[in-house]
């Protein structure tokens, strides 16, 4: 089928750019390698290396490997399931949310967890952290002042997010191989400092912890990314590409990055990765890691945030990206310039917002894989839509499941992995309630909304 024919068959109108409200048309879809690279770009971040460095301070090398593999396997399952939703529907996570939560639910939950938390909050935190890292590496340079670096770093991160998926892909193409290499360099420095591989194997951690604590850290570190995988997989030519790309990057490359950082920290006992790399002799590579690591992750924060805000803020997506970017940069710069300021209270607030996300993921997975199966919707037709389709304004079972899942899994249950508890509870509560109420003839959808050709 030619591109032109495909364009003619596409009944939607992309009024806001980057297919934020409508499914990605076939002629705009990308190969497996593009999807894989963008996922890798999100993964290739300092946060993952920090996660690995924490493992290096808490576990022996063998224990760290077990923790990294088990934690990554859990993330692979969660992200693989949500990635398939985007690959099939072509919609972003926040539009997919219309099905289990209704239109209002997708706007509210999307804006809280992706818009406010990622697009503004975590973007600001990462821009500020970027300023701190640059300042640590170049303490005497005026351009490396925490506030100044947060401004130019934040603006850089904004550029690729404004361009959209193509911008994320370009940057990932450039950054990912570098990040893989610098991780390898970290491991080499670790082996050299640890007296060879055998020496490294015999080293004991500074602050020992239990395996379950480590798995919790690995899962908690990236579960948010695992739930919003559809934002990228919607661009996949084949539905399976998003799932495959996600699983490979998590199982192979996340483990590799975690272990690279763990080896570095276990051997050096340093407190931060960039500093350890610089002290170990990685030279300009440490600086590039700081820039590219924050950039590839933070442009995704903005990108996802703008996608979620677009569900109720009907303007060009890049307007939203610039708006949230400016707010985030202003927050980061303000904190950076205020001597002695800390972002801890702000980060605590964002962490609380993020606690809702796992339960949302659980409900999405339950609705797509179980409830739609129960309703006999063919797999490849799930979450498909066209102009004129009707969706609920509010699906109260979805809301209730998120509320209960978050409250019980995130706060009441003290054992296990909080994020996983919330996700599983959201999944179970929604599945049971939706199916039982449906069988009993109780309506779970309230109100009705007709989707127009712009996807609004």
């Amino acid at each position: 089928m030619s591109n032109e024919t495909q364009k003619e068959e596409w009944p939607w109108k992309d009024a806001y750019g980057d297919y934020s409200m409508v499914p990605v048309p076939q002629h705009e879809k990308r190969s497996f390698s593009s999807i894989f690279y963008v996922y890798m770009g999100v993964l290739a971040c300092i946060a993952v290396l920090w996660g690995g460095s924490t493992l290096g301070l808490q576990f022996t090398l063998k224990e760290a490997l077990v923790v990294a593999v088990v934690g990554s396997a859990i993330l692979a399952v969660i992200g693989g399931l949500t990635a398939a939703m985007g690959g099939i529907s072509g919609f972003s996570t926040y539009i997919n949310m219309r099905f289990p939560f209704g239109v209002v639910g997708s706007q509210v939950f999307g804006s809280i967890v992706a818009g406010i938390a990622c697009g503004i909050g975590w973007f600001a935190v990462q821009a500020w952290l970027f300023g701190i890292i640059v300042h640590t590496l170049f303490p005497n340079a005026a351009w490396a002042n925490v506030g100044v670096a947060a401004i130019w770093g934040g603006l850089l991160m904004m550029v690729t997010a404004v361009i959209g998926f193509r911008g994320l892909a370009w940057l990932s193409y450039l950054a990912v191989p570098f990040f893989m290499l610098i991780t390898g360099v970290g491991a080499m420095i670790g082996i050299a400092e640890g007296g060879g591989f055998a020496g490294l194997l015999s080293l004991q951690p500074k602050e020992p912890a239990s395996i379950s604590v480590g798995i919790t850290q690995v899962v908690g570190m990236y579960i948010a990314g695992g739930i919003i995988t559809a934002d990228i997989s919607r661009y996949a030519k084949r539905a399976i590409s998003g799932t495959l790309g996600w699983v490979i990057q998590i199982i192979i490359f996340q483990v590799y990055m975690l272990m690279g950082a763990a080896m570095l920290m276990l051997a050096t006992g340093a407190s931060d990765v960039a500093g350890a790399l610089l002290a170990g002799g990685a030279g300009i590579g440490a600086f590039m890691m700081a820039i590219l690591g924050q950039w590839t992750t933070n442009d995704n924060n903005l990108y996802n945030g703008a996608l979620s805000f677009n569900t109720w803020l009907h303007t060009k997506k890049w307007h939203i990206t610039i708006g949230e970017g400016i707010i985030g940069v202003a927050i980061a710069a303000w904190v950076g310039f205020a001597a002695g300021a800390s972002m801890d209270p702000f980060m605590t607030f964002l962490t609380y917002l993020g606690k809702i996300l796992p339960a949302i993921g659980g409900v999405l997975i339950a609705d797509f894989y179980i409830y739609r199966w129960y309703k006999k919707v063919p797999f490849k037709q799930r979450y498909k839509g066209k102009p004129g389709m009707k969706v609920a304004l509010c699906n109260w079972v979805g809301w209730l499941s998120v509320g209960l899942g978050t409250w019980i899994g995130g706060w009441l249950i003290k054992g296990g992995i909080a994020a996983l508890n919330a996700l599983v509870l959201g999944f179970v509560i929604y599945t049971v309630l939706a199916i039982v109420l449906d069988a009993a003839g109780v309506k779970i959808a309230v109100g009705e909304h007709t989707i127009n050709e712009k996807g609004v």
Partner: protein
Amino acid sequence: MNFKKYSKITITILLAISIVIFVLGVLAWSENVYTGIIYFIVAAIMFLGCIYLYPRIAKIEDMQEVGNRSVQSNWIVLSVGIAGMALFLAPFFRIESMAIPYIAFVLCAVSVILSAFNIYSAVKKVKARMVV
């Protein structure tokens, strides 16, 4: 010159560069094992990224598709070239014979420039996509 022939010639040059970096890695190995390893990794990725292109464009007549595939290979060379430039002169990889890292650095710089130009050419001449 048609774009397919242009792609083959430039990718052959990049292939040659990767082989020279590999040889430099062999020379550096005896002085610093880690230097040898990083040269081998960079050379191997570059080599595979380049050699992968020959069979992929061999039977394709549509120049835009040739361009798309050329873009993929050149992105790999470009990114790994930048990584090589950032790492080859790092103190951790320092060796006695200073000529080796500088030659490797220059070769990476050449591969970065050539691959960037190849991507530009593919987009301009045959309307290839930068994101494929």
